[in-house]
């Protein structure tokens, strides 16, 4: 069943149109991540779903109900903000119960819900404290609790972990995932952090300029990006892009030719015919390049190690290959001195081929 549905959404501020003709369906119990760099419209979209921004055109449905003109409180949503947005003058307990008090809920029910949320999030000992006496991670737990007590169908997260340090961020990330697994609510989560997106999401919607570039599960997004923007945005370091064209190989099969070097496209599943002469861009992720290992069927290409970045588990190499810089990930145990000549093989089953003009996947 569809939980949240956005139809033909348009949002303009005066002459500036931020979102246009945006459609998005989110299934019940799904964890959807809106991913993009700042200014891409992801938070704006979330605010529209929450009802905090008045939309210009289109419709929004939550649980089969048209909520386009409803106030945020009537939409059945709970929201968690980046800056926690806890009411500074109230204790944690009052923060959690504020919305319920406004809704004139009986005190017994309020106490029950607050106690349950506090237990789930392990903040029971903090109930009498003020937000200023809490750490960042505790504050964000309280903020999640505030959404939890409302007993809503849909959770909206607006970059909830961006203000936390790296260690806390990964801890709370796991906790949000656990929360989703136990509550099974629909969750919409806005972030610019691709690790959060890849680890948490059932599906990721990558946005740019107010347009959803690709909506798919993390594996598809990572391994079969729809266009060069998605390919370059996801993955760190970024996918290597080689500009070239399709040529006819010796055996008649199409090959990729760039700067006088040819690469067999054996193993690549193209969605359309690869006509020789077509200008294309080959995208290969750093971990899909084998160094010094001759894989069956692949040609060998020489490159020179420029810089080596040991990262513990991995060893990142920056290579000079035919005048371009290329990132390659190898095992951390393998070390290379700068200047070393290595041979490269691309894993074409996991590579991507884009049209040079449209930047769309072929």
């Amino acid at each position, binding site marked *: 069943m569809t939980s949240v549905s956005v139809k033909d959404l348009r949002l303009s501020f005066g002459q500036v149109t931020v979102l246009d003709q945006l459609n998005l369906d989110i299934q019940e119990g799904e964890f959807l991540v809106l991913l993009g760099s700042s200014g891409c419209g992801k938070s704006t979209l979330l*605010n529209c779903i*929450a009802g*905090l921004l008045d939309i210009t055109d289109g419709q929004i449905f939550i649980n089969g109900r048209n909520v386009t003109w409803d*106030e*945020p*409180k009537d939409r059945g*949503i*709970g*929201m968690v*903000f*980046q*800056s926690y*947005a*806890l*009411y*500074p*003058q109230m204790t944690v307990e009052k923060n959690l119960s*504020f*919305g319920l008090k*406004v*809704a004139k809920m009986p005190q017994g029910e309020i106490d029950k819900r607050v106690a349950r949320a506090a237990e789930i999030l392990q903040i029971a000992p903090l109930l009498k404290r003020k937000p200023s006496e809490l750490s960042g991670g505790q504050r964000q737990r309280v*903020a999640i609790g*505030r959404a939890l007590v*409302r007993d809503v169908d849909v959770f909206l997260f*607006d970059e909830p972990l961006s203000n936390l340090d790296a260690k806390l961020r990964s801890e709370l990330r796991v906790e949000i995932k656990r929360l989703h697994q136990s509550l099974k609510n629909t969750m919409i989560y806005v972030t610019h952090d691709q690790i959060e997106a890849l680890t948490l999401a059932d599906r990721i919607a990558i946005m740019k300029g107010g347009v959803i570039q690709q909506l798919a599960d993390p594996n598809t997004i990572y391994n079969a990006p729809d266009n060069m923007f998605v390919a370059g945005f996801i993955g760190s370091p970024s996918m290597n892009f080689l500009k070239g064209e399709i040529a006819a190989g010796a055996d008649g099969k199409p090959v990729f030719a760039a700067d006088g070097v040819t690469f067999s496209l054996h193993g690549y599943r193209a969605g359309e015919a690869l006509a020789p002469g077509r200008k294309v861009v080959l995208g290969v992720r750093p971990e899909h390049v084998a160094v010094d290992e001759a894989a069956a069927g692949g040609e060998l290409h020489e490159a020179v190690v420029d810089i080596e970045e040991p990262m513990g588990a991995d060893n990142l190499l920056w290579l000079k290959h035919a005048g371009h810089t290329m990132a390659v990930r190898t095992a951390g145990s393998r070390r290379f001195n700068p200047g070393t000549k290595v041979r490269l093989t691309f894993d074409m089953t996991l590579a991507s081929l884009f049209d040079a003009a449209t930047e769309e996947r072929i």
Partner: protein
Amino acid sequence: MSDRGQLKKTAHLSEVPAAWEAGPRGAKPRRLVSTRTIVVYGTLFVAAAYYLLPLYVMIVTSLKGMPEIRVGNIFSPPLEITFEPWVKAWSSACTGLNCDGLSRGFWNSVMITVPSTIISIAVASINGYALSNWRFKGADIFFTILIVGAFIPYQVMLYPIVIVLREIGLYGSLSGLVIVHTIFGMPILTLLFRNYFAGLPEELFKAARVDGAGFWGIYFKIMVPMSLPIFVVAMILQVTGIWNDFLFGVVFTRPEYYPMTVQLNNIVNSVQGVKEYNVNMAATILTGAVPLLVYFVSGRLFVRGIAAGAVKG
């Protein structure tokens, strides 16, 4: 582990040449007297003296008897301290017909200042809240008009307001003056509150909306409790402004409602008999005492609030 650290440190020290060890070590010493401190404290002292000297003269003069004042040395402390001028200024100095001193003006001023301050702050804070958080259509135009209002000289508006008050039957009354003070405080107070509320995190407002609080709920339960400093700033601005006002007080009220400032002027400028400098000085200090007291009580919050309002916005 700690042993290893110790070993390392010792090893390091032994490598340092003896000449280095004789060099500077620890906190850098500061000279007490330098050109910089002389300039800074000198300037501060001169500025402070410049402002405090008149106050000193006023206080010593108000404590002298008239014969001592006629000797003419205004800086000398009183030989014989007398509080009689203070008593006279408060309760029996003459202004025109009545001779009950400043006390009448004091209570008039209280009756003008208290409601004016409360009403203007209440209205302006709601204005500022609506302007910064509930962006309604035409908000910018409304705000611009309000701010332009702050730059029109008061004198231009005096006569039109007299006519308006006369037409609605409030001319000469205390409530008429309260309305005038409320209106004239509006531009600057609205600006003050708007900028302060705009500086509060927007997400708090959003969170309260998701929690279901409405316009008044958010204002009273979220915004006001977070904004004590700016309310104190507004209070100080209004109390001092309205208390010190002379023009509106003399124009819009009848003699029996004259505020303290007008009363003071009438005492000081009365032309009959001898000029009683000691009574005049005492009356002036009494009139200025209320704003001064307000500032000393809440000055710390004032500075904090002004700074907050200035940076954010």
